[in-house]
């Protein structure tokens, strides 16, 4: 089974801090994704990566950056956390190809105080 592991289930940070969310997948998937999930808005794509050191902006990249130095690891960085970034963050991975299913981690609930 595909395993996508997010480093923290819950995280509390302060406004202005630099925050790192880590995600690791163990199935050699080419694609990796970061989403945020808010009530009534579904999942919104922040960034995705289709290869090592490659990244593409999603729908809401402002205030975020990403890093993919190794195929199995995709990091989401909040450069200077703000209260409007309080949310559930979900990481996913998939094989290459537009119809491939995405496999998700269990999410990180991030609170910015």
């Amino acid at each position: 089974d595909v395993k996508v592991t997010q480093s923290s289930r819950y995280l509390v940070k302060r406004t202005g801090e630099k925050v790192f969310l880590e995600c690791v997948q163990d199935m050699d998937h080419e694609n990796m994704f970061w989403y945020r999930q808010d009530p009534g808005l579904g999942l919104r794509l922040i960034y995705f990566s289709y290869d090592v050191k490659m990244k593409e902006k999603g729908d809401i990249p402002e205030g975020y950056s990403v890093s993919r130095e190794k195929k199995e690891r995709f990091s989401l960085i909040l450069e200077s956390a703000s209260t409007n970034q309080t949310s559930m963050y979900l990481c996913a991975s998939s094989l290459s190809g537009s119809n491939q299913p995405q496999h998700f981690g269990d999410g990180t609930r991030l609170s910015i105080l």
Partner: protein
Amino acid sequence: TQLLEQSPQFLSIQEGENLTVYCNSSSVFSSLQWYRQEPGEGPVLLVTVVTGGEVKKLKRLTFQFGDARKDSSLHITAAQPGDTGLYLCAGSGNQFYFGTGTSLTVIP
């Protein structure tokens, strides 16, 4: 702008009832997927539909892809408490787009 709109947003029904969830868009997708998410977990894929008009069945769940590949529906027959969860549709084009979600509660 939300490409995929789901309705209803919330649904609470009694065990044994039938229900339909809709996923609508003005965009055409090469495929559409349905996921279910339970509290504290990430979404899990239920089905992928690729061909316009395609119907797929998964036990008591029936999924249909619209003829024009712009919309989809999920029908659940004789709902059970274990069906409770957040149902998400997702369309594949040049990017992956998730719907707004339908939160289903089945009351025993």
